[in-house]
């Protein structure tokens, strides 16, 4: 939170759950109703909400509460330096692009006149005037916009290696310097138009590339904010003190209310409750905890307040271990070299050698004076224009991500498609990925029993109760004296009879000991004087899961199931889905080891998962996907996020990735083919400024047009 001198406060928070225009309006108009708020604006792309108001700083809590009450998640946002930097970078790129665009347009206007006539028809003085005006526009524009390339080239040269920006900078500098020289000497070979056009097309590619990669960069900052927050520490005198999680130490006692997340790892010293451990284990059912049970940071206390003794401080917790695993995984991935960079490595030495050969060849052997020889060398540099190379990848990437976006698939990192196109193995998490991750009632039950069960269940927030209540449509019975017994079930009274809903031994142990046990999820209903009724629930697979897996197999991708759930359940699901390899009961580090094993065997692995326990594997896999229902951390770790209840986006992404990768390769082939024609012409000294300009924009347009085929071809 910031405050300026005039008493104007400004708060920036991250809002999760905003998915459409309606959300923007709901949040903004809700805050605008507060009398002291002067501005509330939700940035939809970055999910950041900034609120400005006058007066009392403590009002910030009210605003956060108001947004939470609308049903959106609010996270504190630490305006990290990294994020700020990337934003300035984007603005700078756009500014450079704008200036280059202006310069290109205006120089073209003049150049058309130059190309259409020659010195005889227009007169030497007029031609010189036009050259000078071109120089007047081009030189400041190159000095301004060219910085994007000069800086990075300079850095690379300082570090003792070269990159794509070195030949670009060299071409820009040599072309403008030589053109200025020619203009002074009333010459004909003035390449200001080509130089500025080269710069413009390259900046377009640079900007598209930057936008495609921007989202990936925000991961680290979001991850850190998950770990920050406050804990209620119980003092010796029995009072509660709120302290930052980072300063909670071993041996302290912490109070955790129902509905709160555990800030640290520890064991329970007072109270009993249900804990949602899905974040850490991926298990869909809440776990009972009582005095002495272990709890883990990041899991959620569901039903009753607990006091825990801290066993490990925040930075040693299981959650912190997972974060560390993810960092390790992230470093491994950085070794991936993108196709465009590989092309650049090949391109740079070839072009420089050719230009050098042209210069010395014409000067020493061809017998030209050094100015003319240099002119030919520069022409070679310009005409082997890396425009097409610079555009080949970004254009396809932006088109593909736009197309995926329409199907509810969000591409988070720029090179995700490139990595996805090469996978030959897909690791699936079970709960929440292959399945929907929420239990649903199975089978048909007597209507009276269902009505009674739903009536009690509607009083509880337990996932099984919620599933039962959601399944039933109709009037609920008026119940009295409803109590929730953590870890057991619910009790109530209806027309003087005791009614219970919950675990088998809570409802049914005495009356019905012989009923065969069910391996899955179950709920029992007992009404005084009646036979208990069993309700079977199960976590349903996504409806198209099986067909997606079949289609993946047909594409040569081997599916593998990897889950923290009990092994027999995992094997049963795998059999049902037609997956031959399945691993159950794995902890996050074990999952990570399995992944490392596959990678060591040379597999290119796609991971699809949704829980915190999957996060390290998501980060470590060659490419990863997460459903939109996944926890934030998994979504952050994944390269691709898909929305909806279907699994088919996995297959769609794969086929679009393979298709766009073949387009990228075609684009490179086009660029190479163009150079095969252009380079001999340039080496021979046949290229005039007009031909250079036409050839260059021609190759760029060809590459763009080819990329657009992605839009029209069907899957």
């Amino acid at each position, binding site marked *: 939170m910031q405050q300026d001198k005039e008493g104007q406060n400004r708060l920036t928070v991250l809002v999760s759950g905003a998915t459409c225009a309606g959300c923007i309006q709901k949040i903004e108009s809700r805050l605008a109703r507060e009398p002291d708020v002067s501005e509330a604006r939700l*940035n939809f792309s970055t999910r950041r909400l900034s609120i400005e108001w006058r007066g009392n700083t403590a009002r910030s809590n009210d605003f956060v509460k108001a947004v939470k009450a609308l049903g959106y998640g609010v996270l504190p946002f630490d305006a990290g330096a990294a994020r700020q930097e990337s934003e300035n970078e984007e603005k700078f790129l756009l500014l450079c692009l704008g200036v280059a665009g202006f310069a290109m347009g205006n120089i073209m206007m003049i150049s058309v006149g130059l190309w259409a006539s020659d010195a005889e028809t227009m007169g030497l003085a007029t031609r010189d005037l036009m050259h000078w005006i071109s120089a007047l526009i081009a030189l400041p524009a190159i000095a301004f916009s060219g910085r994007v390339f000069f800086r990075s080239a300079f850095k690379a040269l300082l570090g003792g290696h070269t990159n794509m920006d070195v030949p670009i900078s060299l071409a820009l500098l040599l072309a403008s310097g030589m053109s200025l020289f020619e203009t002074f000497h009333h010459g004909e070979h003035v390449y200001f138009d080509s130089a500025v056009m080269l710069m413009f097309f390259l900046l377009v590619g640079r900007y598209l590339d930057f936008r495609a990669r921007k989202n990936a960069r925000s991961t680290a900052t979001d991850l850190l904010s998950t770990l920050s927050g406050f804990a209620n520490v119980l003092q010796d005198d029995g009072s509660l003190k709120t302290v930052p999680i980072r300063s909670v130490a071993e041996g302290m006692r912490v109070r955790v209310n129902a509905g709160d997340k555990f800030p640290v790892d520890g064991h329970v010293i007072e109270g009993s409750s249900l804990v949602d451990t899905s974040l850490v284990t991926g298990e869909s059912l809440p776990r009972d905890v009582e005095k002495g049970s272990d709890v883990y940071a990041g899991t959620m206390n569901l039903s009753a307040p607990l006091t825990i003794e801290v066993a490990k401080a925040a930075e040693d917790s299981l959650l912190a271990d997972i974060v560390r695993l993810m960092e390790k995984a992230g470093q491994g991935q950085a070794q991936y070299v993108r196709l465009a960079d590989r092309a650049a490595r090949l391109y740079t030495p070839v072009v420089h050698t050719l230009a050098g050969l042209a210069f010395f060849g014409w000067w020493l052997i061809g017998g030209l004076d050094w100015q003319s020889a240099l002119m030919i060398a520069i022409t070679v540099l310009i005409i082997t224009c890396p425009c097409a190379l610079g555009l080949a990848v970004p254009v396809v990437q932006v088109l593909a991500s736009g197309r995926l976006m329409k199907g509810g698939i969000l591409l988070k990192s720029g090179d995700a498609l490139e990595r996805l196109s090469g996978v030959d193995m897909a690791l699936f998490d079970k709960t929440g990925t292959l399945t929907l991750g929420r239990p649903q009632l199975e089978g048909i039950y007597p209507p009276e029993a269902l009505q009674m069960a739903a009536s009690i269940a509607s009083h509880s927030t337990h996932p099984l109760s919620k599933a039962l209540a959601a399944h039933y449509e109709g009037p609920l019975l008026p119940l009295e004296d409803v109590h929730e017994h953590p870890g057991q079930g619910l009790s109530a009274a209806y027309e003087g009879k005791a009614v219970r809903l919950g675990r088998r031994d809570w409802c049914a142990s005495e009356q019905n000991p012989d009923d065969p046990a069910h391996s899955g999820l179950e709920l029992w209903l007992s009404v005084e004087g009646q036979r208990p009724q069993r309700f079977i629930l199960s976590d349903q697979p996504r409806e198209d899961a099986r067909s997606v897996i079949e289609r993946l197999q047909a594409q040569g991708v081997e599916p593998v199931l990897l889950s923290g759930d009990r092994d027999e359940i995992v094997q049963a699901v795998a059999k049902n889905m037609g997956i031959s390899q399945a691993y159950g009961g794995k902890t996050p580090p074990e999952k990570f080891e399995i992944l490392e094993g596959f990678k060591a065997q040379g597999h290119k692995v796609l991971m699809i998962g949704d829980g915190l326990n999957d996060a390290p594997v998501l980060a470590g896999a060659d490419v990863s996907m997460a459903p939109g229902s996944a926890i934030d951390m998994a979504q952050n770790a994944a390269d691709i996020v898909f929305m909806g209840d279907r699994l088919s986006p996995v297959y769609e992404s794969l086929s679009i990735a393979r298709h766009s990768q073949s387009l990228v390769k075609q684009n490179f082939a086009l660029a190479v083919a163009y150079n095969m024609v252009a380079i001999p012409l340039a080496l021979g000294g046949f290229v005039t400024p007009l031909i250079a300009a036409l050839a260059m924009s021609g190759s760029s347009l060809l590459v763009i047009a080819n990329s657009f085929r992605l839009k029209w071809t069907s899957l």
Partner: protein
Amino acid sequence: MSVLLYMIPLALLLGLCGLAAFIWSLKSGQYEDMEGAARRILLDDDEEPPHNTDQSENKAP
């Protein structure tokens, strides 16, 4: 040919106006939320007029 002496500066001036407008729009933060801008056109903003009318001014970030 002397017409060029007027037309070229005039054309450049027009181009510069466009460039200035672009730089202004960039500085006033109009490119910061492209995705949101695309969706905001769907909002019915007449429904509930904001209490504070000076919001229309663009604030430099």
